[in-house]
């Protein structure tokens, strides 16, 4: 037994399994045949068969975001590997732990423009935390352990491991594998800072104690650190209002009286007003993305800023910071929680509540007597009542989802924020459902983005996943149309999707139930039973074509330029 030989493909699978990985999303091809041959025999890892490698990457991403574990995808060399790229970039922008494994042509064929050769390591340098080309089976146990460690610690992110076919086939003894596997990893250049500097923490606490109008901006960093509960305790004890970023939704209960909802371009009036009026901003686990700050010079212009993040490179990248704290949010918020006493901020909280009351998220009426998309989302929110994992695609429906669905639990909203990847929604929902089979998973997609990856519907049938897919179908690439309406005098250039496939027939072709909701009656009577049904269903919601996402702070401007505070664009 000890002297039996094992090959590189087995070493890969065994190394993954020993790291607790039992789920892989992939697509076979020439240079991963040895790995697939081993998967066929190796029973401890379940492989899900995507229908496109981009699907594999997003499925692994959705799995990771929903479970908090690493997501793993597998593809062949050349086009297989490049098809992963969009998914890797998506995970990179949103700091999702992802392990991408690609096959590569044999080491002797490298650099010769061989069939299906691509320099995927070179291609993915800017969109991975790190990546590896494995040239010797003896490096494989160490590299897989390092890749996992790097992807999941510090600021999480994707790591790619490229394995030539001959390395997959080459053999070492089981004994040698064990000895290689037992070597502890050593990464002197990689030492994330987990504990905030005590002096910085003290400065921050003093600033918080002295602030009259403090505001917490809570980002996905808190979710990743598992510190949502501490945030709630701190906010409640100190009476500091909380706004969240798009990716931070779920970190603080939407229905909480201190919650201001989402910040940024399509954030609530209250959130954005609060950034203007606050004298102290506690930015926790956010990266001052331009969709949040608008003009960074004017953002939070009256406030001192405390910025807490595990990635030192985020400090001062987009915005000058008064009190930076590099560290794990869990540790830093633990210190905050321990040392902050009861505070009131009565006037400030009243002011903020006044804005909330005066400017709730709202919308106008349909010009054509159609359903308003916001109406659909609002109804969906009532039915789901916070008891679902909601996955959105990218576009107007994504913003409406963020505005109208209440997220009261961490990791209950999955969306492509940083990269804005259309086509993310469906495969990510598949990954989420596979990762958390006990939860209801709802994918909210637009009629545009859905068409980018709907081949993945096959997995819903194949693996019997009870995902509810809600298409917000306005026959437009709505977000681009909205920009063209507002900034290009309604020159609607290539956004018209009135020639769309029949989505019900597409569902049928994949063996999935479907229905259409196009009236208030149907919305009232048919949405709930559809969402509460057992199996998967595609719910095609035909909505007003030219609804806008409001309020809106045009890109690069500031709160004073906000339009549509009351849900319609005022005539100026």
């Amino acid at each position, binding site marked *: 037994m000890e002297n039996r030989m094992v090959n590189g493909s087995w070493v890969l699978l065994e190394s993954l399994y020993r790291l607790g990985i039992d789920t892989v999303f992939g697509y076979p091809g020439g240079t991963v045949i040895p790995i697939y041959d081993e998967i066929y025999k190796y029973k401890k890892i379940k492989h899900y068969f995507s229908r496109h490698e981009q699907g594999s990457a997003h499925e692994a991403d959705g799995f990771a975001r929903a479970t908090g574990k690493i997501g793993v995808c597998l593809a062949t060399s050349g086009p297989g590997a490049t098809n992963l790229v969009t998914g890797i970039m998506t995970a990179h922008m949103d700091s999702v732990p992802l392990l991408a494994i690609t096959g590569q042509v044999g080491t002797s064929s490298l650099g010769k423009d061989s069939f299906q050769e691509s320099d995927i390591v*070179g291609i993915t340098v800017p969109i991975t*935390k790190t990546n590896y*080309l494995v040239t010797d089976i003896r490096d494989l146990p160490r590299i897989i352990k390092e890749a996992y460690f790097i992807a999941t610690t510090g600021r999480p992110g994707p790591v790619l491991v490229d394995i030539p076919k001959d390395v997959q086939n080459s053999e070492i003894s089981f004994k040698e594998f064990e000895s290689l596997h037992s070597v502890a990893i050593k990464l*002197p*250049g990689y030492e994330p800072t987990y504990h905030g500097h005590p002096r910085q923490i003290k400065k921050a606490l003093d600033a918080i104690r002295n602030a009259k109008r403090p505001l917490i901006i809570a980002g996905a960093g808190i979710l990743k650190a598992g510190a949502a509960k501490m945030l709630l305790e701190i906010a409640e004890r100190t009476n500091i209002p909380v706004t969240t970023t798009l990716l931070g939704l779920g970190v603080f209960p939407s229905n909480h009286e201190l919650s201001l909802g989402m910040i940024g371009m399509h954030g609530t009036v209250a959130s954005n007003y609060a950034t203007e009026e606050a004298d102290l901003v506690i930015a926790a686990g956010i990266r001052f993305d331009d969709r949040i700050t608008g003009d960074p010079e004017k953002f939070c212009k009256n406030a001192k800023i405390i910025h807490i993040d595990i990635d*030192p490179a985020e400090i*001062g990248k987009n915005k000058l910071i008064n009190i930076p704290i590099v560290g794990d949010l869990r540790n830093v918020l633990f210190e905050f929680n321990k040392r902050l006493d009861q505070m009131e901020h009565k006037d400030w909280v009243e002011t903020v509540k006044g804005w909330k009351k005066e400017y709730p998220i709202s919308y106008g009426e349909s010009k054509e007597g159609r359903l308003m998309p916001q109406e659909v989302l609002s109804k969906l929110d009532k039915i789901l009542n916070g008891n679902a994992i909601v996955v959105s695609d990218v576009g107007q429906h994504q913003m409406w989802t963020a505005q109208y669905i209440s997220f009261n639990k961490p990791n209950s909203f999955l969306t492509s924020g940083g990269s804005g990847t259309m086509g993310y929604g469906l495969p990510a929902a598949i990954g989420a459902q596979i990762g958390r089979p006990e939860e209801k998973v709802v994918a909210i997609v637009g009629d545009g983005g859905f068409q980018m990856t709907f081949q993945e519907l096959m997995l819903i049938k194949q693996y019997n996943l009870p995902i509810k897919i809600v298409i917000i179908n306005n026959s437009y690439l709505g977000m681009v149309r909205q920009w063209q309406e507002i900034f290009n005098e309604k020159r609607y250039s290539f956004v018209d999707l009135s020639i769309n496939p029949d989505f019900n027939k597409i569902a049928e072709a994949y063996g999935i139930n479907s229905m259409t909701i196009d009236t208030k009656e149907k919305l009232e009577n048919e949405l709930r039973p559809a969402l509460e049904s057992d199996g998967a269903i595609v719910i095609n919601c035909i909505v007003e074509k030219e609804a806008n996402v409001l309020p809106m702070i045009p890109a690069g401007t500031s709160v004073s330029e906000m339009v549509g505070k009351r849900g319609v664009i005022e005539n100026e």
Partner: protein
Amino acid sequence: MKMNKTYEILIITKNTNGIVARIMSLFNRRGYFVKKMTAGMTNIADHARLTLTVEGDEVSLDQIQKQVYKIIDVVKVKVFPEDGVIRRELMLIKVKANSETRPQIIQIADIYRGNILDVGPESLVISITGDEDKLKGFIIMMDNFEILEIAKTGVIAMSRGEKM
């Protein structure tokens, strides 16, 4: 107004495959202009020492240091201060020379503590070591003759005293 200055950044990194490309592409895509770059082995086994001469303002300099440090194999990043640092660059310069100009060129090279590496019927190859100003000065002097070729290494730098 941002004040752009020239800085030398020291990077110590594990000498893995493609590491220089990785570092250079980071500078490129983050919009930093690398004027010069030297790379070589160092006294730590399997590690390389790079010195990059970059142009930028202080804020962006701080940012790029942190970005470089995010490269897993990089173990140290530092910006050299203006003072207390030895900076050297090596230049090979080929100058047109005949029996009349040769002694003049050799004389100037002597003043600059240059070495004559090759003497041909129509040319001289001289090596000069020094900081940027010294090399510049020598080039100006040689312009009076005819410069045929220049090869420079880029700057290597080291702090004075015990610390790195």
